[in-house]
């Protein structure tokens, strides 16, 4: 059986950044498996700008951002197989993949890096009532048609959900001459980044209706209208507030789900809050030698953070490959008051790491507190904390003890 030191599953931003850093750390025997014909992942269809402000200090389009990594991966001569879908990863790290050109591959790896990204939540998962006509698209699917295939999906558009891709598509469809009638968000606050609300909706006079949802989809063949309604604080439609909006297109931007089908096959346990793997401070899952970073681990707001997380992961993988193991992480990191989730979920208490978290609801004038027992490790004051924005905190080993669980909360 073929053997590799490190197999990277997915050649999107996380996989590319991890591959480059692994090579920098002296790991030679790396293989990237990518199911698309080209590297770059979802960035290929994100033709808007705003990528790279943190990582490169300049504003790039998605393809430009990806190309910076792709060029370096190619310069470094890192082996990639595109058009190659991983079918299975076993807990003893045998990766099985189907490839057009290379047939059925079975490769044993010392380390497997899970960088598969995420998928979109669908109408089926929402169980939105009504018919099933043509013209109902998730935002990413609509973006693929419009940006990669030059195909217009419709003209009279309603958008459900205020996730970033939905906001980006509101602007994109408007620029292509469509009439975006409004964005409806069931929560009382937007799910997308403030800059996207401004640049994609406000700048184009597209109304955002908070605490509203689509309660019925109509049309037997092509979509003819949707019925929207105001919702109470428990997201239940308020009778009498229904309004029927004629449209031929409904775009859904109602959440992203880490794509962990392969992780489950490998025996990796998932955190129900992130829907990604439970990981330690090394981004190692509960299966030794299997690591995860990027949107497959937890959904990020900015690709820059995906790259940074993957680079940190690669540092740890390099150590794992050289030493054969990583320090045990016996301490739990708990998500306390107002915190939706934390990454990592386990730490050693002996090393620096980056703590990532999201708040449950918009908060003003708060402090994020990280503590071990009575000991406050870090207190970060924030004028504003939004669920749409990931919070990252560098934690220094010098302040930690190695025998008390950690708690993270917002007060």
């Amino acid at each position, binding site marked *: 059986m073929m053997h590799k030191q490190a197999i990277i599953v997915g050649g999107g931003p996380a996989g590319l950044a991890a591959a480059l850093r692994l090579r920098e750390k002296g790991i030679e025997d790396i293989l990237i498996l990518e*199911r698309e014909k080209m590297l770059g992942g979802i960035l290929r269809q994100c033709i808007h700008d705003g990528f790279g402000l943190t990582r490169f200090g300049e504003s790039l389009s998605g393809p430009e951002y990806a190309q910076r990594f792709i060029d370096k991966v190619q310069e470094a001569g890192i082996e990639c197989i595109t*058009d190659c*879908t991983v*079918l299975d990863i076993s807990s003893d790290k045998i990766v*099985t993949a*189907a*490839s*057009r*050109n*290379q*047939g*059925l591959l*079975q490769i044993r790896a010392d380390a497997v890096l899970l960088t598969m990204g995420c*998928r*979109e939540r*669908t*109408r*089926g*998962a*929402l*169980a939105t*009532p*009504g*018919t*099933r*006509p*043509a*013209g109902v698209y*998730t935002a*990413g*699917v609509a973006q*693929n*048609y*419009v940006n*990669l*295939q*030059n*195909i*217009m*999906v*419709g*003209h009279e558009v309603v958008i459900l959900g205020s996730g970033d891709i939905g906001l980006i598509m509101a602007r994109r469809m408007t620029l*292509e*001459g469509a009439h975006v009638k409004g964005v409806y968000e069931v929560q009382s606050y937007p799910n997308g980044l403030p800059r996207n609300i401004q640049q994609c909706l406000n700048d184009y006079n597209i109304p955002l209706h908070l605490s509203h949802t689509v*309660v*019925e*989809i*109509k049309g*037997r*063949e*092509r979509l003819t209208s949707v019925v929207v309604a105001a919702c109470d604080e428990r997201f239940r*439609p308020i009778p009498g507030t229904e309004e029927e909006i004629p449209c*031929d297109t409904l775009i859904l931007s109602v959440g992203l789900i880490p794509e962990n*089908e392969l992780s489950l096959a490998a025996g990796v346990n998932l955190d129900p809050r992130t829907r990604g793997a439970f990981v330690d401070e090394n981004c190692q899952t509960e299966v030794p030698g299997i690591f995860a970073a990027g949107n497959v681990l937890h959904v990020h707001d900015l690709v820059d953070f995906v790259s940074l997380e993957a680079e940190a992961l690669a540092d740890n993988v390099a150590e794992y490959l050289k030493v054969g193991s990583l320090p045990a992480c016996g301490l739990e990191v708990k998500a306390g008051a107002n915190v939706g989730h934390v990454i990592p979920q386990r730490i050693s208490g002996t090393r620096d790491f980056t703590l990532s978290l999201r708040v449950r609801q918009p908060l003003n004038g708060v402090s994020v507190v990280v503590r071990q027992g009575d000991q406050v490790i870090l207190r970060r004051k924030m004028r504003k904390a939004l669920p749409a924005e990931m919070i990252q905190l560098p934690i220094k080993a010098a302040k930690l003890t190695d025998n008390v669980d950690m708690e993270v909360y917002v007060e």
Partner: protein
Amino acid sequence: MKNSDIIIIGGGVVGSAIARELTRYKLSVTVLEKESDVCTQTSGRNTGMLHAGFLYKTGSLKAQCCVEGNKEFDRVARELDVPFKRTGKLIVGFTEEHRQRLLTMLERGKANGVEGMELIDRARMDEIDPSAGGNFAIYCPASGILDPFTYTIALAENAVKNGAEYHLYTKVTGAEVLEDGRHLLHTTKGDFTCRWVINSAGLQSAEISAMLGIPGYVIQPIKGEYFVLDKKAGAFAKIPVYPAPTERNTFDTHATPTVDGNVLVGPNSFKVEDGEDYSVSQSGMDGLQESGARMFKHMNREFYIRTFAGARPKRIDPETGEIQDFLIECRDEVPGVINLVGIESPGLTSSLPIARRVVRMIGERETLIPNPSFDPIRKGIKRFHEATREEQAALIAADPDYGEIVCRCETITRAEIREAIHNPLGVCTVNGIKVRTRASMGRCQGGYCETRITAMIREELGKAVTDVRLTNGDSTMFTGYVKGGAQA
């Protein structure tokens, strides 16, 4: 004008079974289907159960055809390459009243010729399926699950292979009898003539019956809504679990594993005016969540991947409203017409027995000459994900399209989708590809593969973007190109 010996109106599972059985004889057979495919209505919108036949009145056509169809289905599934599992079924009860109804059902099952039914206790239930609710149950080993899409498609494809002709998007709008006794049918795709007309129009069977000169039948559509649950829930569902029948001898919400590993929860059941309104309602979904959880302990929101609805075309007594048996008739005063009205559940299980009864009626009126080249065997598309690793390697080596996974959730390859696009019936909708391959039936519901499938439909069939359709009628997916996109 197209002339045939026989025209079948309606290409559902029953119409297609009749077409297939008629091609055993030297007859020209034409099927007229008003929709884009053969299983977009009742035949594709059901639980996919191979019923055993214990629910129906002893001696009724429903009971006879169902028991007959059940017993032969292992062979039928092999002949037609239809995914099928004889899982058995549990019909569970909680109360003494339930126990009495279950015992009545057990007796009726025995009288109908259903074999192997027995009343079992909770301990036996736990051995069979610990996820099932209830305190005791009837276990019926004869029941099974099948893929209703593939079965309907397989019957139609086998009919086509043996010489039948299918006309899709062809709705019958009028009928007359010519001087020579032949029938002239007006359709949305021109006129057709034939010696025999078979009405297998399902929800429209009363309407078509009247058009053919037999008025007076009434079809009451009974709608049912369903949830489709993720295969992760399917891991907990080993066997269909039904509640004890209601006082009216019908079943409330049940949980049924599909042959592909998902779970269907439903249907509820209510009268509707318009049987082709397949919308689902919030109240219906709320009710299914609640009643489904009683039958299936893992009925959980996080497992939802889709909802759908179907309608059973029940023939009712116009006076009393009472539900009637299947009707299969050939009246002397209306020669050359075989009339099927009210073919509802268990129509899927009964389709071939019904078809044989239709053939017999024709054979009683004219001599049927066997077709020596009839071949009962139909092979489906070779499924990559069901193959062993060695077979998979061989498939890719022989055809690189098997190495390109188009649908990641269900592991469907480009080769399978290509074959589905060039299907024998000439179906070219996105939904048609879906039901032939399972591509986009998984948890991402086409999020990954739909953009690839529509591109393949355009490439393989040379279709314009504005000509790609999701399913029936004018369900166009796209309105055109982006600015300057047509030139790009």
